[in-house]
């Protein structure tokens, strides 16, 4: 080995050259990030800050002057708004049911599709079709499927339970007009619609698991359940966390299915938080109050997402 010695002048020149290269790299990175940063600042950051400020005002977009009300909007929401609790419960109910069920179903379907010897692409496309269909269109179709007297679902129930099994039941089930059934009916549609997207995420996760893990486990005598429990589930945890986080955020923001299928009824039993917020903003022009509702919902979502990160904090390295 030949050791070379550099003079202090040479070392200084080298160090300066490194610094210039590093500065150049940083400049390039900054240049690449700049358009996106500006975009977010203009379209997200500034409006968001403005919205937060205006949540302390009686903000009517039609009025030139806006009145400062302090925490009045927040207090009204938390203490006086007669629908606040109802829409919060509805939203929580929707999220708590649709997110885990959607996740489990998508995982099951993804594992099944992944185990197919062929036509994986075909099945992936079939399950993904509802995702690319407009939520308004699917909601309208499902509203028809749920129609009490002539809807396909009740017709099928009538054929199977009444005509075939001769059960003494009335097959005219009021899916979307019953106070107890309306929300589950909307949830079922939402789970169906979102299944394909979650399934594709899980499929991507499944294909990234090296097959050597399964092979090694099989040699050790692991069964199907053990493979699933001890290899698939742990290695899919990052995907699960992503699905849960986005699912909770999406669930808390749900709006369109209820707007189209039930208009929040009957008796506000399917009115979600964002629908309430929308009504305050765009039918009553109470933008200030609607902004405060938005930040309350933001805080709630943040709390749950943070909680979820804490609960599911696990080492994923194997």
């Amino acid at each position, binding site marked *: 080995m030949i050791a070379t010695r550099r003079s202090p002048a040479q070392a200084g020149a080298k160090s300066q050259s490194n610094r210039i290269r590093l500065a150049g790299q940083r400049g390039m990175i900054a240049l690449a990030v700049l358009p996106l940063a500006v975009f977010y600042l203009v379209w997200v950051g500034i409006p968001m800050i403005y919205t937060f400020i205006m949540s302390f005002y009686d903000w009517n977009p039609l009025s030139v002057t806006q009145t400062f009300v302090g925490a009045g909007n927040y207090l009204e929401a938390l203490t006086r708004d007669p629908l606040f609790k109802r829409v919060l419960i509805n939203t929580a109910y929707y999220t708590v049911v649709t997110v885990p069920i959607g996740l489990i179903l998508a995982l099951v379907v993804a594992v099944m599709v992944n185990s197919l010897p062929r036509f994986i692409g075909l099945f992936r496309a079939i399950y993904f079709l509802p995702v690319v269909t407009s939520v308004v269109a699917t909601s309208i179709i499902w509203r028809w499927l749920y129609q*009490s007297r002539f809807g396909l679902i009740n017709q099928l129930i009538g054929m199977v339970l009444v005509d075939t099994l001769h059960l003494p039941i009335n097959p005219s089930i009021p899916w979307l007009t019953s106070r107890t059934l309306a929300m589950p009916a909307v949830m079922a549609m939402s789970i169906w619609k979102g299944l394909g997207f979650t399934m594709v995420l899980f499929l991507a996760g499944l294909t990234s698991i090296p097959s050597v893990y399964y092979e090694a486990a099989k040699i050790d005598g692991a069964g199907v359940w053990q493979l699933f429990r001890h290899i698939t589930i742990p290695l899919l945890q990052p995907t699960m966390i992503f699905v849960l986080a986005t699912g909770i955020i999406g669930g808390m923001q749900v709006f369109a299915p209820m707007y189209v299928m039930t208009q929040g009824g009957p008796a506000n039993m399917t009115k979600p938080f964002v629908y309430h917020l929308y009504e305050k903003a765009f039918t*009553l022009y109470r933008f200030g109050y*609607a902004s405060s509702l938005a930040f309350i919902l933001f805080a709630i979502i943040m709390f749950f997402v943070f909680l979820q990160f804490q609960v599911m904090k696990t080492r994923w390295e194997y």
Partner: protein
Amino acid sequence: MAKRSQFVLAAVIVLSLFLSACTAPPPVAAPAAQQEAAPAQQEAAPVPAVQGEPVGVGGDATGVKYEMKPSLYGGNPITLQLWDWHTPRVEYWEQKVKDYTKMYPNVTFEITQIPGEEYWTKLVAALPAGQGPDIYHFHNSNHTVYIENNMIEPFPVELFDPGYLKANWIGFEEGHFMDSEGKIRYIPYGSMAALVYVNQRMWDEAGLTEADYPKTWDEMIEIGKKLTKYDAAGNIDIAGMDFNGYIEYLFNDMNFQQGRYMYTKDGKACQVDTPEGRNSWNTLQRVYDEKISSPEFLGWLEAFGTEKTAMTWAWTWFSGYMRSTYPEIGFFTLPMPGFKGTELPSSGRQNYEVSLVVSPAKDLERRKVSWDFLHWLYSNDETLVDLALTHDVVPAYKKLWTNERVQAYQTIAQLATTIEFKVFPGEFPSTVDSALRQYIGQNFVSGIGIDQAMTEAQQACDQAMQEKSYWTVERTYLHNDAMIPNQP
């Protein structure tokens, strides 16, 4: 991942996904004085005025005869922006502006159709900022907001004579289109209300004749029984009369028919849980009890078009819907039945279809051209008839009720005979609409009892009314003396 990083990541996800949809640009005030002082539109170099052919001039329906001007806007090119949400009306404007621009070739229009929901939010964003259209179509459900915030210029009295309008047009005597200072902010081109729609074939097949036209709800139920058809299992196959999905509006009409107004005098509460309200509920319940319809049956809109109901109850826009969507189905209309078989105290609710309006945010010279267009448009009898018939409303200009084309249109001719007995309640806020739909319409279908339904509906409607101040004018009804006296 570090706790702080997790938190930041979560915050970024949530903020990006959620709040970007909940924000709006700050409103920028455009002081009226500044707008007034703004120079005339400098769109292009001045060109000599070219006077075109007079088209549709000489009308005097507004009380001021329309005379063709030698030129408008000094003969300089000008493009007026016109916004509307309603397709048939947009198509009609496209025809009319062609006629108008034949007279004034330097004037052109850019007509923009914006879908319903979006329309009002875009206007709200644009107008306070001094942007948006020169002329836009209005709806009186926004009366308070648009007038309070000065987003509609008052109609000039030198073009729209208030005295003449009061004497010859509906609603002016009651002051239904004015602001608190008595200035006209919009005018109606017609009024709409509900009628009973009957499937002609089913009526004939049941052997019914003109002598069977029902005048009371009792008679209506009897006729309904004759028209209802059942399948082998005893389920309704064709309803005698179906109004599912519209129950809350029918409920309101029934209350008016019994002399009960919709709101309290101060406009701060509703009158839902009243003896008349309960009677309306029970009458509606009878339609289900008699198996003329059922809560599980189709909505009225789908049922009538698919011949699943022989009769329904609808506002007259439904005629246009039937013509365009189900042209093969023959139908006729009947006046609303009542509890007494007469029109008094009222035969239900009405609402106006109102005019284009002018934005005060534009400069004076542009507004002059806008007003000339509106004057030309609404002073012409044939235009007013076109508008009424295209939109299935009774013309607001009473003289036109005997017009041949109006008389030949059964729905409108019929509605014209009862329109004076219809109550205009003023603003019908969408929150009240939603409350009644939720707690009257949907409660009916969900099968809860009258006590719970009435209590809930009253509560929800009151809450909706108390949230904001609404413009209620139902006590200006011309037959107010026939309504129940001393209502709260």
